[in-house]
């Protein structure tokens, strides 16, 4: 049985032997999974979709097959959101990240179900991953007004100058989300990017994009300004190089990239001297996302610029 017929079979009321139509259980209202760009939920400009299957092979939904134009729109939205988001106080960003955790908690069962379906996991495992994903927002929320205490400095220069260095957001950051870990992996890469004031354009997992789309629905209602996070679903072979080569993207988290694509992506990223985080040698799908090492203030540091300021001391 093909996945398509499976879906049809699942959704149609069972036929009865005498031909009478039985009492129908309520027909589910399905969700349309859309892109998230500039705080809105457009369909892809291509008007195309691709089928997303569960780990068992059941058809879950049609996802948008995003395009280069969608990436461009997302980058423009991210760039537009950058001045406002980066100018917010660290305390404010901290509260907003915490708010994401609050709203995810409210949709916890939905995320667990989606992770189960996407990743083919039992309820226990999916629950652990979802809880860790929510807790990861809380963990990073606390860093927003603290990481500069680690990465900033007052520099005792050899002269009569006041000299200090502070971290600032790099700008628009492209994120190639891990392919396997649809929710926890994504959040583990996204939270450290936006917490410092960057705006993100995320390529969701190609085969497991649905939890990411649901996450954007949480973001849209969590006081995260539109454009701070933008999500594109689609086929990586049609999207990755356009994101890597976009001249208005300042940094690229290629952690979720298939390492085999590393050379082409890195070469393109060099065209405008993007800051680049490479995929781990064995690929991101070998990472244990529940491990404490999957969260780190050093990861925040990958997407900030150090600005050094000098001023004379005198009367």
């Amino acid at each position: 049985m093909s996945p398509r017929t499976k879906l049809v079979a699942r959704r149609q009321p069972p036929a009865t032997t005498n031909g009478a139509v039985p009492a129908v259980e309520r027909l589910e209202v399905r969700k349309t999974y859309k892109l998230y760009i500039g705080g809105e939920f457009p369909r892809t400009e291509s008007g195309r979709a691709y089928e997303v299957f569960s780990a068992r092979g059941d058809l879950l939904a049609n996802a948008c097959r995003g395009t280069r134009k969608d990436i461009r729109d997302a980058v423009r939205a991210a760039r537009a959101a950058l001045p406002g988001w980066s100018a917010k106080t660290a305390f404010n960003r901290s509260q907003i990240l915490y708010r994401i955790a609050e709203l995810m908690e409210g949709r916890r069962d939905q995320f667990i179900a989606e992770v189960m379906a996407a990743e083919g996991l039992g309820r226990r495992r999916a629950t652990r991953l979802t809880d860790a994903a929510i807790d990861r927002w809380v963990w990073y929320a606390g860093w927003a007004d603290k990481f500069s205490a680690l990465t900033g400095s007052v520099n005792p220069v050899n002269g009569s100058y006041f000299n200090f260095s502070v971290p600032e957001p790099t700008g628009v950051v492209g994120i190639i989300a891990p392919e396997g870990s649809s929710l926890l992996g994504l959040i583990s890469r996204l939270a450290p990017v936006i917490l410092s004031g960057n705006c993100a354009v995320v390529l969701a997992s190609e085969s497991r994009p649905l939890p990411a789309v649901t996450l954007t629905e949480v973001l849209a209602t969590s006081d995260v300004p539109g454009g701070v996070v933008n999500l594109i679903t689609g086929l990586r072979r049609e999207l990755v190089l356009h994101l890597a080569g976009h001249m208005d993207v300042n940094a690229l988290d290629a952690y979720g990239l298939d390492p085999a694509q590393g050379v082409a992506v890195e070469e393109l990223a060099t065209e405008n001297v993007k800051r680049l985080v490479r995929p781990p040698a064995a690929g991101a799908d070998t990472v244990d996302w529940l491990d404490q090492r999957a969260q780190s203030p050093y990861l925040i540091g990958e997407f900030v610029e150090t600005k050094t300021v000098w001023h004379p001391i005198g009367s």
Partner: protein
Amino acid sequence: MTLTKKPESRPAAASWGLSKRGIPWEYAPAPESTDHVEIRREYGLFIDNAFGPSRPKASFEVINPATEERLSRVAKASKADVNRSVVAARRAYETVWSRLPGSERAKYLYRIARIMQERSREFAVVETMNSGKPIKESRDVDVPLAAAHFFYYAGWADKLDYAFPGRTPRALGVAAQIIPWNFPLLMLAWKIAPALAAGNTVILKPASTTPLTAYLFADVVRQAELPPGVVNIITGPGEIGMELVRHPDVNKVAFTGSTAVGKMIGRAVAGSRKKLTLELGGKAANIVFDDAPLDQAIEGIINGIYFNQGEVCCAGSRLFVQESVYEPLLDKLKARLSTLRVGDPLDKNTDVGAINSAGQLAKVAELVQSGIAEGAEIFQPDCVLPEKGFFFRPTLFTGVSQSHRIAQEEIFGPVLSVLTFRTPEEAVEKANNTPYGLSAGVWTEKGSRIFKMVAAMKAGVVWANTFNRFDPTSPFGGYKESGYGREGGLHGLGAYLDLSSDGRNGR
């Protein structure tokens, strides 16, 4: 180098008590003596603490850009030589340097710092002869700062465990380091000091026009009795640098130079696990508000663009003046420009020395021609340039628009483009309108405005009411296409360490 267009108007210099020729008196020559400096007729490659010829044997000439006379010949490395140097560095890393306690590495670096201080004048003279920069700069800036870098990073070598909370820092291994010709010794120090402190061994490739202080530094390595192979120095053309970058046994690449070459290096390491830091070009905005202390600002503007003949990646090459003070500032600036002494770099009174090479001089001249052709108005003092050598008059352009090449491209010469603005917002918009983001300057007496401007500048270093200050404790490096990674301070140390949680330079 002659100009096609004569300067047309002279500034009103009355307030300076200056004559039409700028300075109302003549300076007697005050040349720094060179008799205590020995430059060998030939230098081989420095591998495993020994100078030896390249294989196959080849060499090229190194000249004094102020006289165009030959100073020496240096070996031209081959691909095989690159490999030899990497093998030497690897062996030293595996057998000696990585096994040495940090406290011992520290003492070697302190030794180097001290020897550089002891031999400071020798370094300054050779630097000036080879680069064309004024002796007062090499003597007072380049050499002391270079020694200070070694002294600073020496102290980190045995304190790495305190530097990065939650991490166990590990050396990366073999570092390939490629440096430019504008600050040959200082860039050597910026590269080698943190690399060795972190426990790496290095292969340094100086620029082909300015290898002499690097080879003099090799003698410091010998005097300090560094283990063979810890510091290797090879010379050759750019392709040899690329061979070094591509070498599979290199773990870290650090490059200072042009953005175009930086991108080539970025492509060359693509797909490898090599850690890369880039310090590339710039087109810094120096912004003067109407409440700025003008005389102080003038000195900062002059220092910002004519320091080291403007051959500075962070040079304040775009001056933005608030319209209300444009005329008085420009009068003062032209008057001050006319007092700059251009000439023999070894003369202690020289302010502007020689451009580093004929090629660079041609590039500067070409861009200046483009400024004239695109309609900007040129001003140059009519100082007398030496007959030989690669000299160029300090130049400023007014009537520059944002789209002019002289407002967009890095000139890397003593050429200032003057633009104007009305509001702080306009200044920010114009200042950030460049792919570069290395440095910026802000001049105003208003504290709150300083911080607003500082925050708005997309630049890695912002000098407020000063310009072109450097210190080993102070991180330096760019935003956007000016590169990534920082040199100096704790940030500069981290660039030479594996700070991953798994010890595989992952994350």
